[in-house]
């Protein structure tokens, strides 16, 4: 097990990433704010601590694979990939502009992006394909797949959940960004997911839970996935949609809306203060 990194350093990165996300979205004039801010700590834990990867060699054969199944959260992934060194930071601000590699939803081709995604429910099946290939090739790589909670409404997720447990894919780690909202409103009002732990568990998964904004909780949880043998692991990461900006937190109107200039300034001031 790797040593815990400097948590204060990770927190500093999180603040920078949130800042980048908000500026990118304001400049783009559209995009998904709430679900990008809720996954910041999860992605930083993966890219700055947990995963084996090399930004200088994005196609390194033995790298761990990260799949953003909830493609609309890509502003966060772009910001994290850039911070990790996959491409220059300037490019972040081309988000959603004509000719950009930073498409409105992820498109393979940008260094660090493993799959094109955006139509929900498809990532976990692809993760399983990577995992089966890794087993055939006797590779020890791990496959991480981040899903939204609303995304779990898609039947394909559960088809893939069955496949992963049937093939004993203990090299697959699913993560659910459990921020308790989907576009139309609170999950419990639109299509309740509970009991979610039991659902995954009954599908044959090793289920862990974490505070999705607490680095110590995330690190400790990610470090427990290797202990699961012959079973895939899912981490239910409890998060807050819009995390980090008071007027965006748990305010679902920010699901698919970018901040305007004045809102951006207020948000950045808040981030500076924290």
């Amino acid at each position, binding site marked *: 097990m790797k040593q815990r990194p400097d948590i204060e350093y990770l927190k500093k990165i999180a603040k920078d990433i949130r800042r980048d996300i908000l500026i990118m979205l304001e400049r783009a004039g559209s995009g998904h704010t709430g679900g990008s801010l809720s996954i910041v700590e999860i992605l930083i834990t993966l890219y700055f601590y947990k995963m084996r990867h090399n930004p200088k060699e994005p196609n390194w054969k033995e790298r761990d694979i990260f799949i953003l199944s909830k493609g609309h959260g890509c502003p966060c992934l772009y910001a994290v990939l850039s911070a990790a060194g996959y491409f220059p930071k300037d490019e972040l601000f081309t988000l959603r502009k004509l000719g950009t590699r930073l498409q409105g939803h992820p498109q393979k081709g940008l260094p660090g992006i493993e799959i*094109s995604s955006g139509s929900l429910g*498809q990532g976990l099946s692809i993760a399983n394909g990577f995992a089966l290939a890794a087993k055939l090739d006797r590779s020890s790589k791990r496959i991480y797949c981040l899903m939204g909670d609303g995304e779990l409404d898609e039947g394909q997720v559960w088809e893939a959940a069955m496949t992963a447990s049937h093939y004993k894919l203990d090299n697959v780690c699913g993560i659910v960004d459990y921020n308790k909202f989907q576009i139309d409103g609170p999950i419990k009002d639109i299509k309740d997911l509970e009991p979610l732990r039991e659902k995954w568990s009954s599908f044959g998964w090793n289920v862990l839970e974490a505070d999705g904004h607490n680095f110590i909780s995330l690190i400790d949880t990610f470090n427990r996935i290797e202990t699961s043998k012959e079973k895939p692991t899912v981490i239910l990461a409890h998060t807050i949609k819009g995390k980090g900006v008071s007027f965006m937190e748990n305010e679902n109107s920010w699901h698919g809306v970018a901040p305007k200039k004045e809102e951006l300034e207020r948000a950045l001031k808040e981030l500076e203060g924290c």
Partner: protein
Amino acid sequence: MLKPTRDGFGEALVELGAKREDVVVLCADLTDSTRAGWFKKYYPERFFGSGVSEQDMMGTAAGLALSGKVPFACTFGVFAAGRAWDQVRVSIAYMNLNVKIVGSHGGISVGEDGTTHQAIEEITLMRVLPNMSVIVPCDAIEAKKATLASCDYQGPVYLRLGRSPVPIITENNTPFEIGKANILQDGKDMTIISCGHLVYEALLAHEILKKENISTRVLNLHTPKPIDKEAILDAAGETGAIVTAEEHLLAGGLGSAVAEVLVENIIVPIEFVGIRDRFGESGSPSELFKLFKLTAEDIAEAARRVLRRK
């Protein structure tokens, strides 16, 4: 000799299993029907059953392709192209992945199972996807060649296979190249362009018309996409009239693809043989061919019509 095209596919898979370590096969609970089982028998470690989960299977195939494997994902045509279309679109075609999608039981010749199992829309649904190639072999020999060629071809391919035994009309040494149509019979008065099971009917129509002193070219357009523009334009220029024949809906299928090429380049009369805006139904393949007007006589009748318009 009668043999289903799916058998040619199964034979090719077994050959590929021996030659190519990177070939893997997936199947959505139709292992015997699609002949994917022939591969499974010899290479079980490279066979992945997905259960009755076509959407999941397409995604799994995508992940395997992203890892450098060459997956053949097998199910019935209706489910490959219908049930899993968005997965094929986003998880495979959008990324231009090297996945070979195999839709067996194409067309109404599935017969008695009826509408839900008769794929009559897949040529359309697949060819509209950017990056996707579509191959419709006419007999088991061509199906075998098409499978081998698909494996060497970079990018997603949809391979349409049939359930019923059909006559062998090509030979082992007949050339097969993806995107290159074959002239099976030459003629000067008009051309029948066909693919899949109707190529045999087209050849029979050629004989019927010969007795009426009509000289017909028969073009086997086994690859509706990428389409062989040159062969189509040559046929139009040299014979001056076209009949297309397909075991498929007319909307968006082979006839549409041929018409798209023609109307941009040369105006010649065209007649279409195919299914007109309706679903299939239960019956024996030969009864259904008669009901849907897909027989050699129907093709010959379309040929007479097109000649009157020439």
